[in-house]
């Protein structure tokens, strides 16, 4: 039972052939080198699990040295960036619901008065806790920041109050997700992530398959317009996507107990736009790729930034500005805000609109490019 001996020469023959083929498939080669480099740079610098400079709205009911000290201490702590000052409590609510700010701080008008009397006034801090990871560190540091800010002012005549920690009651409200359950954040996010992955891969393979199997030639030789092919190929996947959503939302309700506060109709609108946008991306890839392998590679190339830079895995506001700009281009970023907004905050169309129109613009742009790229000839 002795077979032929291991031959180094034959091994070399196979090796040489493999290297030649690797060299020929330029795109795969570029992806093998380019993807790790790009991801290392992109994600290494972009991902930050300790988000700082979170946008904060302040309602200062009094203009005492105390409240000025607190606001300034929030700013200098690095966690908070005061973006809005207002006198209207309704504005705070609106900014929080719209996701414009992460925190809203309300200093009552009797703050200085109560503090001087030692009445332990309340400092109200409302956090958008849909993503507990984004707010956790900042809220943890908050009582300390406030105490440190007030300590110098409570010396002298008011020194008697100073040693007692917590001259102020920092009252934290974790809005939209009071128990800081990460599943409330992750499960709605999964709707978007799963859709991104499956929709893009399935459609990118759909047209590439026609080309690879040669059926494109027959299709092109028959009287059918590119838009007819594109719509005909995408429509079935909208149904598939709808089915996936139904399954995930059912599981969200039954298994994970995730609330659904907002209107399912608004969510459905967002879903249709989002699914179609992903399908258009997939279709565009299929017009660029020469074979199904390349189509898969492109899909992953798009999918990875989508999960890492959209705010799904890591807090969006933790990323540096340039990464946030990149993230704003991704459809998943906007959809995550829509789905979390509707399910957890109960957002309606007006609150959702700022993220809905970018999705629509993305869809339009990608569709136009895809239809232009889809060639009616074999040239």
């Amino acid at each position, binding site marked *: 039972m002795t077979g032929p001996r291991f031959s180094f020469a034959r091994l070399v023959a196979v090796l040489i052939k493999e290297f030649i083929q690797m060299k020929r498939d330029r795109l795969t080669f570029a992806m093998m080198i380019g993807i790790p480099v790009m991801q290392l740079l992109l994600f290494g610098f972009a991902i930050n699990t300790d988000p700082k400079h979170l946008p904060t709205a302040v309602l200062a009911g009094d203009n005492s040295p105390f409240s000025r000290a607190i606001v300034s201490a929030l700013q200098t702590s690095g966690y908070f960036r005061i973006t809005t000052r207002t006198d209207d409590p309704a504005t705070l609510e609106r900014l929080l619901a719209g996701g414009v700010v992460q925190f809203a701080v309300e200093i009552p008008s009797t703050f200085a008065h109560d503090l001087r009397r030692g009445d332990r006034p309340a400092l109200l801090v409302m956090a958008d806790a849909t993503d507990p990871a984004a707010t956790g560190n900042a809220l943890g540091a908050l009582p300390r920041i406030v105490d440190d800010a007030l300590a110098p002012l409570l010396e002298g005549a008011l020194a008697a109050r100073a040693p007692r920690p917590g001259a102020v009651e920092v009252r934290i409200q974790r809005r939209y997700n009071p128990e800081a359950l990460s599943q409330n954040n992750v499960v709605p996010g999964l709707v978007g992530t799963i859709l991104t992955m499956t929709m893009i891969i399935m459609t990118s393979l759909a047209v590439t398959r026609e080309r690879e*199997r*040669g*059926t*494109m*030639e*027959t299709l*092109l*030789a*028959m*009287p*059918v317009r590119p838009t007819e092919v594109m719509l005909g190929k995408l429509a079935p996947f909208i149904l598939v996507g709808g089915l996936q959503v139904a399954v995930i939302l059912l599981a969200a309700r039954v298994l994970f107990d995730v609330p659904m506060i907002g209107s399912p109709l608004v969510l459905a609108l967002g879903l249709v736009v989002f699914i179609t946008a992903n399908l258009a991306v997939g279709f565009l890839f299929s017009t660029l790729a020469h074979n199904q392998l390349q189509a898969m590679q492109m899909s992953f190339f798009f999918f990875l930034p989508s999960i890492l830079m959209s705010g799904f895995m890591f807090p969006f506001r933790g990323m540096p500005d340039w990464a946030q700009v990149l993230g704003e281009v991704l459809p998943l970023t906007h959809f995550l805000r829509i789905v979390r907004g509707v399910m957890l905050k109960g957002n309606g169309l007006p609150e959702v609109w700022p993220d809905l129109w970018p999705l629509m613009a993305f869809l339009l742009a990608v569709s136009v490019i895809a239809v232009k790229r889809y060639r*009616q*000839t*074999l*040239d």
Partner: protein
Amino acid sequence: MSAVPSPVSPVSPVSPSGPAPASLGPAVSVRGLTKRFGPRVVVNGFSLDVARGEIHGFLGPNGSGKTTTLRMLCGLLHPDGGQGTCLGHDIVKDSWAIKRQVGYMTQRFSLYEDLTIRENLEFVARLHALPDRRQRVAQALDRLGLAGRRTQLAGTLSGGWKQRLALAACILHNPKLLLLDEPTAGVDPKARREFWNEIHQLAADGMTVLVSTHYMDEAERCHRIAYMAYGHLLAQGTVDEVVAASGLSTWHVEGAGATLNRLALALEGRPGVAMVAPFGATLHVSGPDGPALDQAVFQYQDQPGLAWRRDHPTLEDAFIHLMARAPDSGQGPQGKGGVS
């Protein structure tokens, strides 16, 4: 092989019921068609006329530009130069109209392997928006003997059945012109014969057929043929005309294998001898100049064991000669495998 069944005249036997009156002009008329892929000129100043109702053979070596030409005729490729019409429609501007009236059968099977025969035909019928779809599909199934297999997946069919399905799909909308790209490659002789009977039947019903092939017997079943090499049209006409136009003189030599081999080696490259090709027990020796050829072979004609016979060159002799003589434009046939 010498019994040529085709009528010499391009006026084909169009049946009285045929829907193609001759007044409509040629089915295909192109002038100076040119196509480049990068630096390679694949089709170079190609001109062709195909009369309505005729079966026009399209021959040439691999990579000569036949497929590219057919694709330009049916709007699958944009020509880089030249112009022409297909069924009276401009091949550049009116490709939509052409697609509705032309049936194109690709060289490689290109229907959906994961659909059944019937599903494939229904898909094609729907794309063409045929009003009586069910009836048309049923007719096509019957006509090509596919009815018994209509629920079989196309991917599980053998080569001959796939070819029938492909033909059924491209005649479903009753096109006026059929473009067939090597339809019988890899198909057994019986299926090939049946296929050609079907082609003749379609032509008799008034369809024009332009069919590319490598088989000489198929070329001889065409009314007229065109021979293309290296992107150029080298010869066109009836089989007899093409053979005559080659200007070849040919000797056929019969003898024992070893003797013939020695003779072939001795004759190869002698002045006056253009080609020496063995066909079984016969050696074909040809040259463009009759007297020069006779002079070259004269000294071998007395050799024992050889029977010399002056004969007509075959179509294959003519083609190989045409190809050898063709302007190669610097690229051999083997370098063009990508576009055949």
